[in-house]
């Protein structure tokens, strides 16, 4: 296996590790840092794939990833939690060791699912597809087990990272127009979520989304 592909594999493993770190993290502030790290690993792996395959548009998407996911979105989230005063611990529905055991189950499921696809693919980095799938599922799990709104949004953004990684590893990336569109959507989504946070808190005096399950008469 060429050294560059090995390096992409290493970064893929790092992404998976970060997904688990996010799943086990109790603090919102650290979650945002981990999200930025995930973006950085993603950008690096995209750049390596671009370099080893000569696909120039991947350079653009790597640059976009750095700007958006390493700098802009973490900064926006930082501002948000500063203004919402939600730096404290995250509440989870299930305790953390159990969540991680469920996470291992998900990883095994994703790997089993990806193996047949991997055998049909011809790309250099096909073996990382399972890892990308696993990090998507883990972000899903994180959105399910977290009670507060901010970690759920972070889970959503991490899921987008996983999808992006799946796209680069399986097909060398989508066309640039699509990627630009997705990146813009994510950015706009983050802003809308930010506005929603304030509305949720104004309505229920907390960011706990349990309150949204009960119906209001007025």
């Amino acid at each position, binding site marked *: 296996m060429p*050294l560059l592909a*090995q390096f992409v594999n*290493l970064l893929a493993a790092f992404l998976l590790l970060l997904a688990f770190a996010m799943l086990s993290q109790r603090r919102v502030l650290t979650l945002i840092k981990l999200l930025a790290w995930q973006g950085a690993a993603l950008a690096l792996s995209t750049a390596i794939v671009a370099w080893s395959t000569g696909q120039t548009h991947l350079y653009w998407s790597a640059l976009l990833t750095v700007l958006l996911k390493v700098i802009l979105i973490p900064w926006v989230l930082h501002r948000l939690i500063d203004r919402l005063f939600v730096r404290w611990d995250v509440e989870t529905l299930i305790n953390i060791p159990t969540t991680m055991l469920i996470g*291992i189950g998900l990883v095994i499921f994703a790997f089993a699912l990806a193996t047949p696809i991997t055998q049909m693919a011809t790309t250099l980095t096909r073996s990382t597809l399972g*890892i990308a799938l696993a990090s998507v599922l883990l972000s899903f799990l994180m959105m399910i087990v977290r009670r507060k709104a901010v970690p759920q949004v972070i889970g959503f953004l991490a899921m987008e990272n996983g999808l992006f990684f799946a796209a680069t590893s399986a097909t060398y990336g989508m066309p640039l127009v699509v990627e630009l569109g997705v990146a813009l959507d994510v950015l706009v989504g983050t802003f809308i979520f930010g506005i929603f946070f304030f509305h949720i808190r104004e309505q229920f005096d907390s960011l706990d989304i349990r309150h949204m399950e009960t119906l209001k008469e007025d």
Partner: protein
Amino acid sequence: MNNGAGIAFQILQSVFVVLAAPLLVGWVNQCRAWLQNRSAPSILLPYYTLAKLFHKDAVIARDASPLFRVTPYVLFGCMWLAAGIVPVLATGLPFAPAADIIALVGVFALARMFSALAAMDIGTSFGGLGARREMLIGFLAEPAMLMTLFTAAFISGSTQLTTIVDTLAHRDFAIYPSLAFAAVAFLMVLLAENARIPIDNPTTHLELTMVHEAMILEYSARHLALIEWAVAIKLFAYMTIGIALFAPWGIASAGDWSALPYAFAVLAGKLALAGAGLALIETLLAKLRLFLAPEFLSSAFLLAVLGMLTHFLVQA
């Protein structure tokens, strides 16, 4: 390989580990003192402590059973055996086929069981408390340790530690994501098993937090010296297992006298780095609450399992 030379290597390594282990502990303590801006004790302090303890008269509780007297010798013997099996200076030692990695974990478990039994033997509340905590940590750390070792075993296709080291040391350069996972997991297990900071504090005698110290509270004089020495050898053995799995370069093969000085120098350098790293970790981290220890160790287990899964997926 010449049989006589192999045996000579085996004896050399076993004696070397036993003699050098307190030096490693001294080095870790010295590094920690520097990092904490204290004036460091002599690096030879563990030897002085051992000598002092061997010259004292032992005090043994009235109700102590023979088990209590035997345990220090069992501990020392187990650790010495482990030190003979791990390829510290050379691979292919005549003693190495005696136990593979699973048996090695068993040897450590035997030592743990004896120390827990001896702690409960006296019947003081501290002993029972320490023993229970130690068993809690032990039963969580062992699966993580085994998974870590299995990852390395899958890569090299053997559970013999000496074969694993031979394969890993003499391969072409390749990045193994699975080994990176396993290395982090192993580090966490090393901290837990050797009663180091996030799990246990080796310098405290505060009843709320101590684990290992609570177990050996009733020991004195030569018994205590043997236990302290065994603890030092255990730390040495764990560090050399880590070096053997994740940074095996420069190890000699048994009977090759010319490679020995180089192997010595490389080992000393790696151990100095590892000891300084351990001191750094202990300075930077705070001790976890006991009830967070399961979380810490289940993370280690998780990392080890992930390493193994990654090995199957990316074949590297």
